[in-house]
C-alpha cells in the first residue's frame, strides 16, 4: 500500500534545512501554495534560495517569507508586480540577491532538471545583458546560449485534486510552473484541496504523475492569494 499523505503542512515542511533551494509554484496569485508558505515561515529555515516566476505579492505567502528575512536569493523572471513592495525594498537595501532569468528559460531549466538534462541551448537572450558571461554556440548559422538545469531541494505545490499516490490535477491557469517544479525537486510537497483514492482520477487526465510527488497534505479550503491581497491581509 502506498500513501503519501501527511497530517499537516507543518509536518510536510518540518525537515527543511537552512540553505535549501525551494521551488514555489504559482504565477502571480494563481497556484500560490499559501498554506505551505506560511508553514515554512513557522518552520524557520533560513538562507533559502527561492525559485518563483515573481517575488511575492502584498504581504502574504511568498512575500511574507521574503519579509521574514529567510530568503537569501530569488531566482525569477519578473520580481516586480503590482502589489509587491517587500522584495524591492530588501533588494535596494542589498539584503537579498536576485538572479533574473527569462521566463521560458526558467521553465526549461526546471524541466531539464526533472528530465536529467544538465544543459541545453536556447535562442532566448542572445545579444542581451542576460547572456553576459554565458557560453554561446552556433547551430545552423544561428547563435544560441547554453543554459544549465535548475534543481530544487523541495518544491511547494498547490493542486486542486490529488490521490494518495500523488497523482495531481490543477485548476485552470493555477497549473503554470507546478508540473515542472514537481519534476525538478528532490522532495515535492503538495497541498491539495481534495484528496481521493487511487483510481479516482482518470489515468488519461492526470497532469502530474505521482512519481514526481513525495508528500500530499489535505488543505480543504485553501486561501487564495488573490483574496488575501484584496483584503489587504498580512501574515503573520
Amino acid at each position, binding site marked *: 500500500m502506498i500513501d503519501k499523505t501527511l497530517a499537516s503542512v507543518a509536518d510536510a515542511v518540518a525537515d527543511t534545512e537552512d540553505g535549501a533551494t525551494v521551488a514555489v509554484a504559482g504565477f*502571480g*496569485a494563481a497556484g500560490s501554495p499559501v498554506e505551505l508558505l506560511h508553514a515554512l515561515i513557522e518552520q524557520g529555515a533560513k538562507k533559502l534560495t527561492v525559485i518563483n516566476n515573481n517575488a511575492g505579492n502584498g504581504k502574504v505567502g511568498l512575500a511574507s517569507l521574503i519579509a521574514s528575512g529567510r530568503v537569501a536569493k530569488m531566482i525569477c523572471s519578473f520580481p516586480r508586480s503590482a502589489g509587491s513592495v517587500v522584495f524591492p525594498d530588501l533588494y535596494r537595501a542589498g539584503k537579498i540577491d536576485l538572479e*533574473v532569468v527569462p521566463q521560458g528559460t526558467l521553465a526549461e531549466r526546471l524541466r531539464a532538471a526533472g528530465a536529467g538534462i544538465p544543459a541545453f541551448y536556447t535562442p532566448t537572450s*542572445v545579444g542581451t*545583458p542576460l547572456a553576459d558571461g554565458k557560453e554561446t554556440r552556433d547551430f545552423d548559422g544561428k547563435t544560441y546560449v547554453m543554459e544549465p538545469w535548475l534543481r530544487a531541494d523541495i518544491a511547494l505545490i498547490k493542486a486542486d485534486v490529488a490521490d494518495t499516490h500523488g497523482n495531481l490535477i490543477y*485548476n*485552470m*491557469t*493555477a497549473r503554470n510552473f507546478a508540473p515542472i517544479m514537481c519534476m525538478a525537486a528532490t522532495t515535492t510537497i503538495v497541498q491539495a484541496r481534495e484528496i481521493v483514492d487511487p483510481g479516482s482520477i482518470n489515468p488519461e487526465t492526470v497532469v502530474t504523475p505521482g512519481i514526481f510527488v513525495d508528500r500530499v497534505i489535505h488543505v480543504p479550503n485553501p486561501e487564495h492569494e488573490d483574496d488575501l491581497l484584496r483584503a489587504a491581509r498580512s501574515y503573520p
Partner: protein
Amino acid sequence: MSWTPDEMAARAALDIPNGAYVNLGIGMPERVADFVPEGRTFVYHSENGLLGMGPEPAETERDPDLINAGKKPVSLNPGASFFHHADSFAMIRGGHIDYCVLGAMQVAQNGDLANWSTGAEDAIPAVGGAMDLVAGVKTIYIVTRHTTKDGEPKLVETCTYPLTGLGVVKRIYTDLAVVAVLENGFKLVETAPGVAADEVRKKTAAPLA
C-alpha cells in the same frame, strides 16, 4: 491627424491573417483583440499556460485561477486548452506562435528591440517572457507611440537601452505611421491620415526609406 492607440491596434490587427496563433503583450498591444477584422478568428496564447484565451469576463464570472500573463482575469474561447509553463514556452521558442504584438522603448533599423529595461542604476531588473517571445515567435509586431513623452524618437539607428532581442522586429505601428523593418533598414509603409512623410522622418532617428 495621428492615430489613436485604438487605431494603432486596429491597424496592426489588419496585418494578421485568419487562424493565426497570437500573443499580445501587456498594455496597448492587448487592444488588438478588440479590433479583429470581420471574418477572421485569432487564437490567443498566454504565457502562463493558456491557448484560446477570451476577453475579460463580468465581475461575477471571474475565477482567480483563470488569468492572463498580465495577471488579469480572462475567459475561455471554444477550443481552449491549459498546459504547463515548459509546454507554453515550447510553443513560443519552437516557432509555433505566428504573431506577437509588443510595446517598445526603442527599435533599431536592423530590427533590434529594447523593451524591458532602461538600464537605470536603481532599476530592479524584470524581463518576464519578453526575450523568449522575440526569440521564438515567427513575426514580431510593435505597437508604440512614435516618440517618447519627451519627444525623443523611439525608432533609432542603434538601441541605447539594454536589448530584448537582436534583429527581431518586422513592423512597427505608431501613432504616425506603419514602418516595416527590411534588410536595409526602415521603410515607410503608410502614414496616418494628414500626417506627412516628412514629419514621420523628422521624428525617426534613422533613415526611413
